[in-house]
């Protein structure tokens, strides 16, 4: 009898959760469906759900717009570039703090975190000036550097929490066997740290891909990534829902898929170890 009630309850919870889950997901679902409609069907009254002539013409139209491939390339270069550059700088730092902690390690970590909390508008004009001075406004290199800097604290923190889980004894054993620092890193640390590094890369690509302050303000055309490209749709020109949807789906699909794999890392990366 008790078991029967449990199953009944389970079905109840299932229905309720799926209902709410689908409701939250609905805007994405609707965008997905709309991206396969013709512009006329996209605004038909009443709305049509599944039974329409599915078409790929919107995707073709968006791809033909001269600046879409450029925006996609920019997004990829900026997200990957800033993440990898950040990893390059952060791995040694996080390694040292995790395995050779000093008296000031905690202060350094907290100070790094505090730089993440600096409001962007507090440094807005100086950055515009600096960019103009070096003639790198609207360039990928500028955004790679800025996104690297705003995400560096998160990269260091995530790597630090992963590295701390690697038992120090292993490194000491390697040192006993005569491994120098370089060999220690290449042969001992790297294989054990790779999963953590991969997770960190994943989460930071997501964060960089979706960054929408600096990418909007500091780019015009040449370095404009997808965030900026999509924002250019904000002035509607006639019928455009279906094309907007197609462009949106192409902009979010890769990150959505990566995001689903990085749920756990998200908690670790964005709470700085304060929630476990």
């Amino acid at each position: 009898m008790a078991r029967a009630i449990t199953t009944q309850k389970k079905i109840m919870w299932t229905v309720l959760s799926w209902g709410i889950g689908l409701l939250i997901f609905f805007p994405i679902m609707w965008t997905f469906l709309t991206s396969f409609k013709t512009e006329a069907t996209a605004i038909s009254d009443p709305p049509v759900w599944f039974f329409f002539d599915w078409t790929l013409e919107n995707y073709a139209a968006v791809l033909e717009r001269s600046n879409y491939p450029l925006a996609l390339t920019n997004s990829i270069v900026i997200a990957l570039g800033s993440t990898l550059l950040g990893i390059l700088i952060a791995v040694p730092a996080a390694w040292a703090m995790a395995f050779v902690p000093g008296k000031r390690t905690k202060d350094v970590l907290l100070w790094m975190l505090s730089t993440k909390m600096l409001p962007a508008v507090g440094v807005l004009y100086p950055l515009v000036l600096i960019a103009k001075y070096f003639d790198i406004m609207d360039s990928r290199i500028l955004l790679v550097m800025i996104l690297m800097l705003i995400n560096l604290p998160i990269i260091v923190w995530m790597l630090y929490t992963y590295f701390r889980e690697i038992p120090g004894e292993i490194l000491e054993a390697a040192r006993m066997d005569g491994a120098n620092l370089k060999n220690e890193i290449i042969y001992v640390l790297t294989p054990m740290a790779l999963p953590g590094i991969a997770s960190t890369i994943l989460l930071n690509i997501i964060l960089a891909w979706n960054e929408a302050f600096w990418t909007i303000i500091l780019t015009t055309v040449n370095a404009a990534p997808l965030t900026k490209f999509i924002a250019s749709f904000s002035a509607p020109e006639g019928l455009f829902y279906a094309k907007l949807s197609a462009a949106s789906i192409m902009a979010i699909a890769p990150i959505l898929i990566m995001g689903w794999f990085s749920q756990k890392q998200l908690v670790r990366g964005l709470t700085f170890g304060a929630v476990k």
Partner: protein
Amino acid sequence: MATEHSRSSARLMIAPAVFVLLVWMLVPLIMTLYFSFADYRPLRATFETWIGFDNYASFLTSSSFLSSIGTTLWMVGSILMITIVGGVLLALLLDRPMFGQGIVRILVIAPFFVMPTVSALVWKNMFFNVDNGLFSYLFKFFGAQPFDFLSQLPLFSIVVIVAWQWLPFATLILLTAVQSLSSEQLEAAEMDGAPALSRFWYIILPHLSRAITVVILIQTIFLLSIFAEIFVTTNGAFGTRTLTYLVYQRVLESQNIGLGSAGGIIAVILANIVAIFLMRIVGKNLDN
């Protein structure tokens, strides 16, 4: 044991990260501080290096500052309310036994990965639009007048968009916290006949308090700098101009660098007040 040698190489390994962050933080911030005491309006070719606290005085006493603070508080406050209350309920719900839990989790978490400009544009056009938005069809279906959300309730509309993006974040973190709650304690309380509401109030909520605090602090820091959602939907009009947006407009639209920089410094100070609390919690956790 760390030797003197490994300690010095450790310092060397930390140095690049510290250096770039130090430069990143100090150089622009000092420049902003410098401009905030200057009368600097490039469009009028005005540059007077020292006018004292005039910019701060005029920024702080302007009606747009006060209304931007009000807007910011409303926006951040209501988004926090929605995401925390919704997040706790959703976390508890997702913790129940059910079929297809993994898929529901994926559905719920998805909005967090949608880039801000996409979510703002999708909501603006396909939901809020008075002629062709889904809400208008819904209203018409129930025999009500279609409603122009973005011009009638602009602040509310932006709150909806941003809350939709951040609810998954709150849910995910609170779910992690819920799952670390020992079921024995709850079962014992259930055996003793404690009703569900008091179990929630006396066991679950205290257990979640730390995670809730962390979510509030982290979200506040991110929400204080909401930009793209406002940029795409109202461009700061109709009473949706937050402090961040006001500073952006002063600096880049009206090109009053002095005034905008003073506003920027004020934003930095306000953000730091929140940051101090967050750092304390994170710092305590580092000791364990």
